[in-house]
């Protein structure tokens, strides 16, 4: 238990130093923090965009990160995914559990579906696959960001990481205007379920060599986003 003893010692030392620095006595933490009024938040928390504006802003901003974006009708989804796979020579496509079966029911015969459920795929299988198809939890128009929360149709984090090509389908209803709205919608994911959250804004990039932006040092080098237009 030497390690354990040393650890709680360090904890006491640090807390002692902090209280010394702040010139305060030992404080009861729960009461202390609850008693604080919320800070002034005068920044915007709602966006003024109409649904139509959000849709187009999202598509435009995602494209600016060198991702391909298309706005499509619900009934065309399967056909678009089929064409994208055939045009890009995708022979193996990873899909998470809970994916909308209509999206993958019309794939060409040559395309192998790699399902992560019920048996999870191995790292090697994922690494050797050509592409991954997922849904999303949210889109943010202002920043062109896709947010995954490991929910149904999105799967484990690693699924969208190892394949070189990510095809992501998102519905217009899932697009919010600005970041504060997205954070609010993630409340229950984080506070209640504790599931991981990944924000994706364009394909992997670096500007480490003489500040030239290069795609794909690690994550997927291609990102293709299909936005399903809301039925009016």
């Amino acid at each position, binding site marked *: 238990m030497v390690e354990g003893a040393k650890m709680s010692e360090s*904890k006491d030392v640090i807390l002692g130093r*902090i209280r010394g620095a702040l010139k305060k006595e030992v404080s009861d933490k729960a009461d202390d923090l609850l008693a604080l009024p919320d800070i002034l938040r005068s920044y915007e928390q709602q966006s003024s965009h109409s649904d139509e504006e959000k849709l187009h802003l999202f598509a435009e901003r995602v494209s600016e990160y060198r991702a391909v974006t298309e706005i499509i009708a619900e009934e065309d989804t399967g056909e678009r995914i089929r064409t994208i796979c055939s045009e890009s020579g995708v022979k193996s496509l990873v899909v998470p559990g809970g994916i909308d079966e209509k999206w993958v029911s019309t794939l060409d015969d040559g395309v192998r579906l790699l399902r992560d459920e019920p048996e999870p795929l191995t790292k090697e299988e994922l690494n050797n696959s050509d592409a991954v198809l997922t849904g999303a939890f949210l889109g*943010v128009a202002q920043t062109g960001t896709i947010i995954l929360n490991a929910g149904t149709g999105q799967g*484990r984090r690693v699924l969208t990481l190892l394949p070189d090509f990510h095809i992501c389908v998102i519905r217009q209803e899932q697009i919010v205007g600005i970041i504060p709205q997205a954070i609010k919608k993630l409340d229950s994911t984080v506070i209640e379920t504790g599931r991981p959250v990944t924000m994706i804004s364009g394909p992997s990039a670096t500007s480490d060599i003489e*500040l030239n932006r290069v795609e794909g*040092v690690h994550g*997927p080098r291609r990102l293709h986003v299909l936005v399903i237009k809301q039925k009016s």
Partner: protein
Amino acid sequence: MNKTTAHKPVPFEQSAGRYLADTQLRRNIGHAAQTIRAKRANAVNELSDWEDLREAGRLIKERVMNNLDSYLLQLEESVIKAGGHVHWATDGEDANRIITGLVKRKGVTEVVKVKSITTDEIKLNDALEKEGIHALETDLAELIVQLAGDEPSHILVPAIHKNRSEIRDLFKEKLNIEHLSDKPADLAEAARLYLRKNFLKATVGISGANFAVAETGTVVVVESEGNGRMCTTLPDTLITVMGIEKIIPKWQDFEVFMQLLPRSSTAERMNPYNNFWTGISDGDGPQEFHLILLDNGRTKVLADETGRQTLFCIRCSACLNVCPVYERTGGHAYHSVYPGPIGAILTPQLRGLQDQSAASLPYASSLCGACYEVCPVKINIPEVLVHLRGKVVEYKKEHGGIGHKTDTIHLGMKFMARTFQTRNRYERLQRLGKIGQKLFVKDGAISRLPGELAKWTSIRDVKPIPKQTFREWWRERK
């Protein structure tokens, strides 16, 4: 990391001279700073509520610092509840010992790492290396720096001092690649292949953290390349090191920081990837998570009421890119993992003023205030700089002893004070000076003075006293 270029810490004014002479470095840094500066301004101007966000950012961080003990305890509780482990480390040695112990228990000799200035601060890689554990840096730039046995020169673009052909030669030699062009895309591809192999077999990952939420225990790594995703997702065990000041109270606070940070740092609306995790998730990512809470001098900064705001820093590097001093000397001249204006106030406070090199940093500024203007959490860097200069002088007075009393600057200032006391003394000295300076004036300036006075002219030119002084001219006019 085998450091082939271990820099000996010397005062800033000495090291700056060496880097000023390096034109490649100056060109790279100048180009980078200009590019990022313009981009950042665009990204920021797009938000009409930028000033409100800055204010909120500052208020949140201020609250954290004023209740740091309580928030740390809350964070600890949240992380444990979410299935993680929490360790407290008083200093770098303490942290390195904990981390090395954890890695050894896993029985591995190689770990993958995502860039973290905090782990550079505590020299974690060296500590691991001593125990026979190799830490592989997985950021493209960090990999370049590591392969070269060099030190990072910019928080955001650590390999800014290397150009593409230097990088190509390095990769060819160290990664055993026979044919390689110097196109950035090809260089990135070479790094991708090399690192991917290592990611797939890694069982322990080490990361820093940009923020950790006290309320939920959620930790985030903000990044561009995807190696942050790799390191925090692929290995079975994840070890994250964070300074105790990185806490934010609530999940909601990301409303503010997920806007402030990307626009200030990479000057984008959003950087490519943000990875948030809360303890462990069944079947998704690491099944063992350790969070190390590091003090290492931060509580000393906290104790100084003017200096305390230094801890608000979210390491965006915006202040570096607007700094006229940094733009000319680059990062290495600061002899610290924290370069630029933030380094000039953070390093002396972390290390203490007995460290001569650190104590010279508050003077590495013209106090132009550009850093304060761009800082997303409104740290008044010039105020802290001036405050620290005062402390340096006081420290010298207290600890300098007789050495300080006979110090040239001290004596010089005393002499000047006497001279300025009466008109007669002042004018007499001017007349003497006019005669004396004849020996030293060259092309209208004095660049070299003899003896002790040489210290003054070693870093600046002095204007000679004019043939006719203002006072003489005024008298003649009447």
